[in-house]
């Protein structure tokens, strides 16, 4: 989950120190550096573009407001950002579920099927179908998958961002991969 930085660009910590002094340019650099991954995580967890963008705004408002009191305590800025993102997304999902008719994950799988797959399934269609299958996973599995594959976090970093043990995170990832493997196998069958 290394911050995307080149040899010449300043580290997250250096930028954060500048942000705490009110440096807007440093804040913009952090937003450009971490924004896409934070957005990818929020998109994957919420499955709604507008809500995901709202969460990204929220995360960066917190970063701006609290930069002055940042104490790393061994944690990376990216881990903090992803943890705040996943917590805000989980809170959002909880709020939405309270407002709407209860719907369990099984129902979502039925009502949110993969796009129609014709016999000559192209790579783009397969990717669409795979994305739909990922979106149909339970929330925490989706979050773990997004952290691992979209953000590029290690299992340990994924666990830290989700506030889970490494074992629990590994189990989440295994269950998600098994579910997706079944979907992929079905796709292979259709395309051959």
């Amino acid at each position, binding site marked *: 989950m290394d911050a995307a930085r080149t040899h010449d660009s300043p580290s997250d910590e250096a930028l954060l120190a500048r942000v705490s002094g009110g440096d807007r340019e440093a804040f913009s650099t952090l937003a450009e550096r971490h924004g*896409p991954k934070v957005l990818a995580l929020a998109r994957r967890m919420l499955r709604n573009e507008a809500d995901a963008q709202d969460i990204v705004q929220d995360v960066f408002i917190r970063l701006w407001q609290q930069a002055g009191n940042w104490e790393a305590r061994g944690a990376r800025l990216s881990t903090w950002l992803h943890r705040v993102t996943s917590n805000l997304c989980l809170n959002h999902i909880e709020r939405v579920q309270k407002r709407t008719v209860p719907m369990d994950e099984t129902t979502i799988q039925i009502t949110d099927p993969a796009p129609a797959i014709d016999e000559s399934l192209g790579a783009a269609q397969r990717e669409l179908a795979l994305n739909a299958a990922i979106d149909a996973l339970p929330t925490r599995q989706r979050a773990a998958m997004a952290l691992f*594959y979209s953000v590029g976090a290690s299992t340990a970093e994924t666990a830290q961002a989700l506030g889970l043990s490494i074992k629990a995170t590994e189990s989440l990832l295994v269950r998600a991969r098994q579910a997706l493997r079944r979907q992929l196998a079905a796709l292979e069958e259709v395309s051959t």
Partner: protein
Amino acid sequence: MKPEALEHLLLRYGEDLDHWPLWQRIGARRLLSRSPIARESLARVARENQLLRRAMAPTQMPAELLQGLERIPEQFPQHSAAPQTPHDGRHLFRIGAAWACACGLSGLLIGSTGLLGSAADDEALATLAFGIPGESEIHLENTP
């Protein structure tokens, strides 16, 4: 190691054996060197993970969102609330110390109240704790 075990470990740790725990890595490498089924499992997991990485790769942020983020400093003042970094040992120690102090204080209070307590209190406590009547009650029954 058997091919089924390798399959499970591939799902758990991925196709890059260098990131596996050492003793499992050794077993897996041994199996891979002699089993075509194991090699097929490894290739399959590598293919699946490549697909997943491609499908889940982060895309660029919409320009409006980035502009919105860049306007945050103009719209929100910075304040001094601490960010939610994970708890460390010092934090837990502080909580523990505060808890120990509170327990000690409560103990002192209870102890000092006990010194001034009556015999009736002691009886009630004995009855509560052991389900037996207090000393004075027995004494009364034995009185001629």
